[in-house]
C-alpha cells in the first residue's frame, strides 16, 4: 500500500508533537514546561487524528479522489530544480558573499532560462548595482562578504 504525501505530513506533525512532549519534560520549572508541554500534547493528539484519517481515507476510493482533486498539482522536477537554485544561491552567499553571489546567480539563472548573454549580463550587473545603491549607499548597511573573504 503506497502512502500519500498528506499521510507523511500528518505523521511528521505527530512525531513533532511527541518530540515536543519528551523535550518539555526536561525543562525543570513548571513555568517553562507547562505551555510547551500542553501545546505538544495538542499537536500529538491532532497529528494522530490526522494520521488515522489519512489511513481510513485510503479505504474509501471516492474520498481519496476528492482529496487528490482538492490538492493543487505541482511539478516535482521543477520544484527540485528551483530548490536547487535557491539552495545554491544561499550557499554561494554564505561562502562568497553578496558581491559575488548576486551577479553570478542572476547571470547563471538567466542563461539556464536560455536568455541571451547580453541580457543576462546586463541584468546581473543591474541587480548588483541596485543592491549596492539601495543597501550600502541608501540604507548604509554593509553587505555580507562571505566566509572565504573573511566574514564571520
Amino acid at each position, binding site marked *: 500500500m503506497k502512502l500519500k504525501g498528506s499521510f507523511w505530513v500528518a505523521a511528521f*506533525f505527530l512525531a513533532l508533537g511527541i518530540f515536543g512532549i519528551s523535550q518539555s519534560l526536561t525543562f525543570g520549572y513548571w513555568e517553562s514546561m507547562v505551555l510547551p508541554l500542553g501545546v505538544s500534547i*495538542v*499537536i500529538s493528539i491532532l497529528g494522530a487524528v490526522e494520521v488515522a484519517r489519512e489511513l481510513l481515507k485510503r479505504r474509501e476510493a471516492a474520498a481519496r479522489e476528492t482529496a487528490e482533486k482538492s490538492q493543487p498539482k*505541482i511539478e516535482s522536477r521543477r520544484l527540485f530544480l528551483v530548490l536547487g537554485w535557491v539552495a545554491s544561491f544561499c550557499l554561494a552567499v554564505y561562502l562568497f558573499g553578496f558581491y559575488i553571489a548576486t551577479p553570478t546567480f542572476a547571470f547563471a539563472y538567466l542563461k539556464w532560462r536560455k536568455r541571451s548573454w547580453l541580457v543576462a549580463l546586463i541584468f546581473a550587473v543591474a541587480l548588483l548595482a541596485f543592491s549596492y545603491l539601495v543597501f550600502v549607499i541608501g540604507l548604509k548597511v554593509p553587505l555580507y562578504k562571505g566566509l572565504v573573504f573573511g566574514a564571520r
Partner: protein
Amino acid sequence: MLEAYGAALATLFQPLNLLIMLLAVFAGLIIGVIPGLSGLVMLPLLLPFVFRMPAEVALILLIAFHAVIFTGGSISSILLNIPGTGPNAATMLDGFPMTQKGEGGRAIGAAVTSSMAGGVVPAFLALAMVPLVMPVILAFGQPEMAMLILLGISFLAALTGGSAIKGIIAGMVGLLISFVGYHSITGVHRFSFGSAFLYDGIELIPLALGLFGLSELFYLITRGETTIVRRAAVRMAGVVEGMKDVWRHRWLWFRSTVIGYIIGIIPGIGAEVATWLCYGQAKQTSKHPEAFGKGAVEGVIAPESANNAKEAGSLLTTMALGIPGSAVMALFLAAFLMVGVTPGPSMMVEHLPLALTLLLGIALANIVGGAICLFAAPQLARVASVHFDFLFPGILIVAMIGVYVATLSPLDFATVLIFGIVGLVMKIYGYSRPALLLGFVLGGLFENYSLLSIKIYGPLFFARPIPLTLLVIMLVLLNQRYLKRAFSALRGRPARP
C-alpha cells in the same frame, strides 16, 4: 478622543510620511498589476526594510502599499484578462469584455473610481467605530487576552486552512516554534539543542519571508504560472465616462462598499468572498442581468468597491482585538510587534493616534493610488509583461539581502529556505500558514498572559465571564461543521418520523 484624531492627522500629513506613502502607493500599484505577485508575497519582503524605521513611518508605508494592491490588480484584469491579485478575478468577467468592445478606458475609470471611493468611505466608517469599541476593549485583562489570542489562532485555523484540525495543528506548531530559545522567567533554554544560533529563538523576518514570500515563489514556479508575456497596448479613453458610471450606479457602489466593509470586520472571510458576493448581488439586482459577463459596467463597480472596502474593516479588527482576519493581516500583526506596537486592546489605549493614523492612511492611499491609476493605467499595465525569469532572481536576491540586513546572521538564509519548504508543503496539503505565523508571533505574549493568569487566578483562570464567552465562541467555531450537521439532523427529525 478628539485630540487623538488631531494627532493622527498631524502625523499623516508630515512631509516625510507623505513622501513615504507616495512611494509605497506607487510600489503597491506596480505589484498589484503584476499577476502572481500579491501582498502576501511582497509584504514579508518589505519587513526587513521597515523594522528600523519609526513605528508610524513603517506602518504607514506598509498600509499604503497594501491598500492599493487591489486597485493595481484591476488594471491587468481589465486590460489583459489576467487578475493581478485573486480578488480581482471577478472584475475580469466584465472588465475584459469591455476592453474587447473598445471600452477599456471606461472600465478602468469605473474600477479605479469605485476602488478609490470604496477604500475611502470604510476608512471613515472604521474611524467612527473606534469610540464605540473602546468600552469593550477596556474590560480586557490577562485571562481575557490569553483567550483572545487563542481565539485569533482558532479563527485563522478554522477559516484559512484545509480543515479545522490542520489549522489548529499549524497554530500550535507556531506556538511551539515561538518557545524556542531562552525563557526569560526561568532562564531555561528550550528546544535550543545547545546551539548558540537558537538561544535567542527563531527570528520573525526569516520565518515570515520563508513561509510566505519564498514558498509563494516556489509555488508559482512549480505550477508553471510564470510566463506573463502579453503586451498591453490599450489607448486610454473614456475614463471620465467610467467615473460617471460609478455615480450613475451609486447605490450599487454603496451596497458593495458596506458589504465589503462588514466582511472585512469578520475575521477569516477573504477578499475573494467579498468580491464574488458583491458581483452576485449586482447581477441579481440589475435590470439587465443578461449583460453580465459580456461587459456590464456594474460587474466592474461591485467587486472593485468591495475589495478595497474590506481592508479598513480587517485592519480595525486586527488593531482593536489583535485578531487578524487574513494572512496579510497576520503579517501586519507581525509588523506591528516588530516596530514595538502590540495590537489588541492595549494598542487602542496606548497607541490610539497611531491606530487612527493608519485608518486615515488607508483613505489617503486610496485617493493617491486612484489618481495615479486614472492617469497612468496603460503605462502601469505594461509592467505586467515583465517575465518571471527576471522576477524570480530579483525577488530572491532582495529577500536574502533583506534577511541579512534584519538579522546580520548568514545562518538565517537556512531559516528562510527551511520555512520556504515548510510553507510550500503547508500550502499544498492545506495546513494554515497564517495560523502558524500568528501562533509564532503571539506565542511570547500568550505565554506571559497565561502564566500571569495562572499565578493570579489559578489554573481555572478562564472561568470568568469574558474568557468563558471567548472559549465558547472558539469551540463553536472549531466544531461548526459538526454543529451544522447536528442542527440539520435535529431539523430533519420531524420530517422523517
